[in-house]
């Protein structure tokens, strides 16, 4: 069983659009949407929901206002500036914890002399298993301003692997998040191959170099393709040269195509339409040689 993860470094280069097309071209794939705080793949793969699960991860510290004596010992111990002094005008008669700042480390519990801090598990979102047009799909939705996006990504991948093994699917295709931080790391560890989709701009080059350094740090075979290549031919050539120098495989170029948004509006993957760039996407898929 192989696992292809599609990354970019920079946001907006076309990861999700390309993932959707690959899902339609592949033989019996399992698809995983790991861009958990801005998931879009479901908008073009028409999934029918089969299962929904709460994602409970980590903890949240909550000061029990009815028994807090306002000693304030907890406040300086919090290294994340999550504990705030009383603000009666906002309805906080005692010290209180900002849930969007609380990292769930548990230090305040240890320092509270009166033991008035509660530490419930945190509901950070939900993950789903659906049937998409191309096969099983695992996706998720991180709660508003929630923590633990990396752990939610790990959960999505673990479920995708389980489904692939049980159903004897040969390939998992993962739509990755932008950036290089925690959720990206969680989406690539143990993958067979990464495809970096970038764009021909100074930002695209800069960000690609960083995500390439990340995949090399983890020793994962990496390919690169430049999307919207004809916006700047010189940048495209520069990026391809950088990729080759870093021992990544250049698997093709995809032209800028204004009709891609129309395919999205029609809720279809690009390769299901007559968009001119569909041909380029097919060639990149062939070049990846995964099946």
């Amino acid at each position: 069983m192989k696992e292809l993860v599609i990354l970019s470094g920079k946001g907006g280069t076309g990861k999700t659009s390309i993932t959707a097309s690959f899902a339609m071209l592949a033989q019996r794939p399992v698809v995983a949407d790991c861009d958990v705080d801005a998931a879009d793949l479901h908008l073009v793969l028409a999934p029918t929901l089969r299962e929904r699960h709460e994602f409970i991860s980590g903890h949240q510290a909550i000061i029990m206002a009815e028994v807090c004596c306002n000693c304030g010992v907890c406040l300086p111990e919090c290294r994340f500036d999550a504990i705030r002094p009383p603000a009666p005008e906002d309805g906080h008669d005692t010290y209180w914890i900002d849930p969007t700042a609380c990292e769930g480390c548990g230090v305040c519990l240890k320092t509270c002399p009166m033991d008035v801090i509660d530490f419930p598990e945190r509901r950070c979102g939900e993950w789903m298993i659906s049937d998409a047009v191309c096969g099983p799909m695992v996706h998720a939705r991180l709660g508003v301003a929630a923590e633990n996006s990396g752990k939610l990504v790990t959960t999505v991948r673990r479920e995708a692997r389980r489904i692939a093994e049980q159903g004897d699917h040969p390939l998992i295709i993962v739509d990755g998040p932008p950036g290089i931080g925690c959720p990206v790391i969680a989406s690539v560890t143990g993958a067979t191959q990464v495809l970096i989709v970038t764009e021909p701009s100074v930002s695209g080059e800069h960000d690609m170099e960083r995500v390439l350094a990340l995949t090399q740090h983890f020793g994962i075979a990496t390919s690169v393709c430049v999307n919207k290549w004809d916006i700047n031919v010189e940048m495209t050539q520069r990026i391809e040269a950088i990729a080759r120098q870093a021992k990544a495989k250049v698997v093709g170029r995809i032209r800028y195509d204004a009709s891609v948004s129309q395919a999205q509006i029609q809720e279809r993957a690009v390769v299901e339409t007559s968009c001119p760039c569909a041909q380029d996407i097919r060639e990149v898929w062939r070049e990846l040689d995964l099946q």
Partner: protein
Amino acid sequence: MILAVASGKGGTGKTSISVNLAKVLGVPVQLLDCDVEEPNAHLFLRASLVCEEEISIAVPKIDAAACNACDECIDFCQFNALASFCGAPLVFPELCHGCGGCTLVCSRSAISEESFRIGTVRTLVDGNITLNSGCLDVGVSLASTLVHAVKARQQDGVTTIVDAPPGTACPAVATLRGVDFVVLVTEPTPFGLNDLKLAVDTVRELRLPFGIVINRVGIGDDRVHRFCKAESIPLLLEIPDDRRIAEAYSRGELTVEALPEYRAHFAHLWQAINQHAAVMP
């Protein structure tokens, strides 16, 4: 005024709008690049480096001689940064959040703290613009702490523009907390609207006043316009889909320099922001 430029979807034009806006203001501006995983603002400025500071967190250091392998620290750690090994625990600094809890629970005083580098904050100057740019080391997972380090360099009394990372997870939330106004940048497509709704939920959860900029108008349809109207969200600016903007951007050029006719757009944006920031609670 501390203004954040954010989005749900990546690639909508946050950095482009942040830097172009800073350029047209004509007053001293502090630009904070909080997209610490992939900072780009510096690519569009002809800025000289003033200083580079290393940013670290405090991670545990175990004195094996004093440790009695009771595993209290491992049980306490919420982030799996300590693991059991024969004898004293192993530390995984890349997973550590730097909370200091393990040092508190150790009954043998066997845990002290040492610095672990997570990245840098660079300060650069281009005329009226001072840029503080955070850059996370590749392989480190803790972006939020570096975001705080960038924001800590904000100076009172100076107009500040904060370039946020995409999405709505911890690094974006850390960037947005405490700002005066948020500009959400989107594109008029299904992905754009879907992610915009998530970003709107986030800024509402954080109780921050906000408005919307629609970039690349013409590539999709009017769903975002209809959403703004239905939700009574101020539409601060529309930028048309203009291939020349994309080409200039690809070369690292600012829109307002390559295509001066767009200066008026950004001046209008600044006016609209101030107008709405003044009336919103």
